[in-house]
C-alpha cells in the first residue's frame, strides 16, 4: 500500500505505539498478583491502629511489594488515562498538555508513596 518513496524516506507511523501497548499489558500482569495481595493485606489490617499499620509496612516483604505496587499502578494508570485523553480531547495543544500533566502527577504521586513506604520501613520519621 505504501509508495516506494514513502518507504524509502521512512515516513508513516512513529513506530513507537507498540511500546505503550506492551507496557500496559506488562504492568497489568504485574498488578494481578500485587493488587490481590494488597486487598488481602488491607482486609487483615481492618481496625488496626497506626502502630500496627506502621509495623506491617516495616516488614521487608510488605515494603517491597508496596513499592512494586506503586510503580506498576502509577505506570499503568498513566498509560490508561493517556488513552482516555487521546480519545476525547481533540485539540492538539490541550491533549498534549493533559498527557504531560498526567505523566508528571503520576510520577509525583508514585514518588510520594514510595518515599512514605521507605520512611516507615527505615524508621526515619518515628
Amino acid at each position, binding site marked *: 500500500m505504501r509508495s516506494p518513496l514513502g518507504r524509502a524516506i521512512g515516513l508513516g507511523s512513529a513506530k513507537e505505539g507498540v511500546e505503550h501497548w506492551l507496557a500496559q499489558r506488562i504492568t497489568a500482569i504485574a498488578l494481578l498478583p500485587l493488587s490481590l495481595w494488597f486487598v488481602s493485606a488491607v*482486609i487483615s489490617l481492618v481496625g488496626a491502629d497506626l502502630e500496627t499499620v506502621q509495623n506491617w509496612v516495616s516488614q521487608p516483604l510488605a515494603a517491597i511489594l508496596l513499592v512494586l505496587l506503586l510503580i506498576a499502578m502509577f505506570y499503568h494508570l498513566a498509560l490508561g488515562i493517556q488513552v482516555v485523553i487521546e480519545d476525547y480531547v481533540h485539540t492538539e495543544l490541550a491533549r498534549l498538555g493533559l498527557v504531560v500533566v498526567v505523566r508528571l502527577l503520576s510520577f509525583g504521586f508514585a514518588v510520594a508513596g514510595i518515599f512514605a513506604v521507605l520512611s516507615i520501613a527505615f524508621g526515619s520519621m518515628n
Partner: protein
Amino acid sequence: MRSADRPLSPHLQVYRWQLTSVLSILHRATGVWLSAGAILLVWWLVAAASGPEAYDGVEDFLGSWIGLLLLFGWTVALFYHLCNGIRHLVWDTGHALDLKNTYIGGWTVVAATAVLTLAAWVAGISRWVS
C-alpha cells in the same frame, strides 16, 4: 457535507444497550475511578509516615459512611477491572474473540466481580466485628 458534520462512530444514542458495550465502557470508567483510588493509597501511606494527627484524618474519612461507600466502590471497581483485564489479556492472545465466548467471558467477569467483592467485604466485616 463538511467532514466535521459527518456522523461519528460509535453513535451511542442509537445503539441498543448490550453486555459487551456496557462492560467495555465500565472497564474504562473503573480504570479512571481506580486512578483516584491510587491517590487515596498514597494519601494513606503518607499519613501513616507522617504520624498520628495525619493518620487520624485518613481514618476519620475512611471510617465515615461516605468513606465506606467509596471504599466499597473501589473494591467493586478493582475486582471488575482486574477480571475484565484478564479477559482483555486472553483476547490479546487471539482467543475467545467470537460472539459466544465474548458473552460467556462477559458474564463470567460480572459473576466473579460480585463473588470477589462479597467475599472481600464479608472477610473485612467479620474481622471488624471480632
